[in-house]
């Protein structure tokens, strides 16, 4: 009896703390369920229907896997998928490597110099994507853009390059903008991660005769793995979901269509096409599956490391 009372007390305390914890989680949980889980379930459900905006004249019916089968016959979707993968394959490693390089170069700097670098690299992240895109659009302009002006002035080109109107350049131009807007956060994270590396381990390695490269890869890099994993997953998801740049610069033309843009286009532009909502939702499901698979692979590899 004497022992059970404190146990009871402790359970009651535990329960109270649990309840308090859940209550603190509740606001985000409401948002998460309301704006993520439920729409996700609806999206999956609609993917199996021919849902469309004009339900007054065209009732929604269950079509099974038809949308998912049609996707693989749709050349526009396949091209968009190819472009999306190209963006992911190019931008994820370059963003990670560049961020790691810049982070390594500036993390040991002190005070205002470090802050200045952080600001410079973080500026494109906090600047509105529309503003950034408009500035890049001016720079890429076929007639009066500064890039053409500089390249021509330097004698590198004779005729202006139509950066956004020529399919040889357009997607790469978009990847470049995506790169500049994506590196800010990883750099700040890497600077922070490098600053938190246990210096005693570094000193011990150096005493044991490790050179700078060995210290980096054997001591610092393993301690930065959680940060790297986070950066990889976030950059992959952002690259898969590249939409605003396409919408604002090319509207999917000049060989720049991506799955995200094609989803938007099918859902909100092709409203006369029967089953456009269902088809767009099916694309969304496929995209989510790809993102999920790639993220799982990244988690798995990082865990093995």
């Amino acid at each position, binding site marked *: 009896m004497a022992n059970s009372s404190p146990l009871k007390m402790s359970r009651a305390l535990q329960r109270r703390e649990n309840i308090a914890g859940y209550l603190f989680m509740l606001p985000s949980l409401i948002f998460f369920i309301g704006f993520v889980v439920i729409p996700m379930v609806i999206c999956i459900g609609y993917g199996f229907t021919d849902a469309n905006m004009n339900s007054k004249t065209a009732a929604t019916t269950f079509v099974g896997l038809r949308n998912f089968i049609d996707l693989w016959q749709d050349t526009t979707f396949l091209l968009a998928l190819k472009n999306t993968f190209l963006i992911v394959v190019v931008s994820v490693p370059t963003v990670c490597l560049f961020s790691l390089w810049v982070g390594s170069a500036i993390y040991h700097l002190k005070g205002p110099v470090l802050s200045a670098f952080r600001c410079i690299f973080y500026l494109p992240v906090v600047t509105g994507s529309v503003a950034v895109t408009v500035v890049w659009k001016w720079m890429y302009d076929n007639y009066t853009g500064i890039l053409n002006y500089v390249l021509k002035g330097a004698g590198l080109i004779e005729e202006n390059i139509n950066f956004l109107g020529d399919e040889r350049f357009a997607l790469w131009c978009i990847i470049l903008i995506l790169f500049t807007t994506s590196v800010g956060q990883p750099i700040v994270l890497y600077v922070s991660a490098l600053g938190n590396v246990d210096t005693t381990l570094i000193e011990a390695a150096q005493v044991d005769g490790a050179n700078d490269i060995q210290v980096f890869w054997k001591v610092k890099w393993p301690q930065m793995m959680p940060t790297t994993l986070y950066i990889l997953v976030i950059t992959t998801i952002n690259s898969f979901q590249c939409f605003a740049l396409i919408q604002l610069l090319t509207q999917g*033309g000049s060989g720049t269509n991506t799955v995200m843009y094609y989803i938007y286009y099918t859902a909100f532009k092709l409203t006369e096409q029967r089953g456009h909502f269902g088809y767009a939702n099916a694309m969304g499901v496929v995209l989510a599956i790809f993102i999920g698979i790639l993220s799982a692979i990244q988690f798995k590899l990082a865990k093995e490391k």
Partner: protein
Amino acid sequence: MKVKKLLAGALAVAMSLSLAACGGGGDAASSKPAASTPAASQPAASTPAAPADDVADAITVWVYPVGGWGDEAKVKPLIDKFTADTGIKVSMEWLAYADGDDKVNSALTGNNAPDVIMEGPERLVANWGVNGHMVDLADMIDATDRQEILPAALAAGTSTDGKVYLYPMFNVAHCMAVNYTAVKEAGAEANINLDTRTWTVEQFDATVKALHDKFGGTVAAVFCGGQGGDQGTRELIRNRYGTKLTNAEHTAYTWNTPEVINALTDLKNMPGIQFDASLQGGDEIAKFYQGVLKMAFCWNAAQQLDPNSAGTGEGKTLTGDEIVYMCFPTQEGKNPEEGSGVWGLGAFDTGDAARIAAAKQFIKYMCDSENCSQAGDISNFFSCRSMAEGVEIKSSNPLLVEYYGKMMPYMGEYYQITNGWAGARTEWWNMLQRVGAGDDIAATVAKYEANANAAAAG
């Protein structure tokens, strides 16, 4: 612990309330869609009349930037007058062509459509109308109206089953423009007939050549960065050898013709003409206004009055060069078919009789009353009717009067109500991009016409 609980509880309640505030729903006049620009909703200073019992006292009107109707300052006095006369408050929202369709489609999906919308038949009739979202306005058009309204405009606002989804308000013939100062500098002014504003393909080609020889670079762009202003490229291409892009019934696309293929081939091979996938109509106008391009294919009366909406004077570029509007060139230099632009008002079927009644009252006020003239003047286009309620409607602006005399007789049929128009427009500019990229023209035209017809078939 108590503090923790209280805090958690308060947070949960706050979040729940914020969620509830975010939620839409509700019905009738109390649940009007939010207007982002409510400035025009203020009633006039005088005591407003009261609406009838079965008429809602507030409506929401969404307006695409059609000519001068895109300028809030110009529209506001007329809206205030309507409120003062009828007692119906109006929440105006100005849409952009870039994302206006998305907003309307989202509103329709969420059962939150506005009461009235201003745009053209390709949206009001061929899309939202035939898909059951609009109110049939046929009961608003009596025998007198049918005599007074331009038959072509009324036909454009009417679906194939006879329902009127768009009450015609104003119209214009879309044309092209040249930098006349540059043309004179290039010594090619003999190709420009200022009396008729018509010209032959030969004269057009010679003018492009002269401008290219004089200034180099791109004289004019077959813009294909999107659907914006695509009527310009359509009319340029179809007039060159004289053909139609759809069948007479507006059920199928017929642009896979030797005329279109030959026109595209000519333009593709013409020095000075660039198929530019980085420009849309608005961008082209801006480049023309800046003097970078010497011709514009996306032009009309409103642009001539206020080029690039820059407020720098009628018919002048940024640098003061003279702009001359021209018909699209044809082989004979006669009987061109300019792009047909018709706009009007439609009422969304909100399911609320009082709101629909108020919407109809608004439409009647703007399209069939003594205010019709003012509504037309705001647009910088031409009223679709000659008389309204005994009042003759006539523009007093000399430039518009001249434009009306020279261009409106050439206005072509309104074919933008062909089935699957939204999809077909995309196929058109994608086709131009492929032609510009150097793909085989005949095969490209055939492929994209087939895609457009697939869209038409639903």
